[in-house]
């Protein structure tokens, strides 16, 4: 990562999910079959309405919102990867719905800011 006066120039690259898990000290809660998938983009938000405005589908959702609606939003948006910040409690219902929909959930002890910073620095592209 290079710093140039007011901007950061990151060398973007695709990342493998299992490498993301390692970088954020993550724990995989469901969807282990996606561990070798590669992704290019990530989006951080607690606002599901904002996630629902995105047209792309192949991205990692980093969120602090751990409830059934974050999994429903992923299901409706066709997104397969959720990363929950700050070790939020995940209900059995969330795991069940995510598993039925083929969605991977990773939990990290890090904050959304730290998680996003690490993954941006490692090369994931922002959606905007």
């Amino acid at each position: 990562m290079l710093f140039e006066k007011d901007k950061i120039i990151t060398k973007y690259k695709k990342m493998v999910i299992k490498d993301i898990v390692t970088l954020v000290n993550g724990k995989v809660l469901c969807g282990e079959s996606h561990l070798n998938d590669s992704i290019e983009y990530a989006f951080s938000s607690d606002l599901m309405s904002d996630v629902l405005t995105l047209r792309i589908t192949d991205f990692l959702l980093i969120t602090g919102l751990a409830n059934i609606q974050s999994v429903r939003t992923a299901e409706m948006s066709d997104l397969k990867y959720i990363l929950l910040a700050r070790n939020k409690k995940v209900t059995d219902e969330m795991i069940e719905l995510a598993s039925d929909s083929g969605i991977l959930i990773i939990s990290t002890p890090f904050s959304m800011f730290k998680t996003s910073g690490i993954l941006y620095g490692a090369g994931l592209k922002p959606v905007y």
Partner: protein
Amino acid sequence: MEIEFKVEGGDFTQAGYASSQVKKVLKQLGIESSVIKRVVVALYEAEVNIVAHAYRGNIKAVFEADGIKLFLEDEGPGISDIKQAMVKGFSTASKEVREMGFGAGMGLPNIQDNADEFTIESEVGKGTKLNIFIKY
């Protein structure tokens, strides 16, 4: 073919069930995934709106040869100023709704963005009706 669902106001555990079922049918019909996403995002936003704002509602999905028609009708407080409700960022949602990740005034504009045809009618003290059409 058509399917109908009843939606209970305030029951966030069930919000999204109807949209999920409609998604399954569209997949079985072999509809293109980008179209499915537009349909279910529009329907999910509308379904969440019933849960968030109304007492109860009904969703009907009609699968036609060239597209899907969605009819949503609720019994609720209604919308006094639809023009204002369509403005991005305007919301009357409760704290509980915001805690679920909604209520930022983005739902109705997002429904309109995803729909090929969209109409909304509302009567204060009675409820709101949405008609959505999305071409395959």
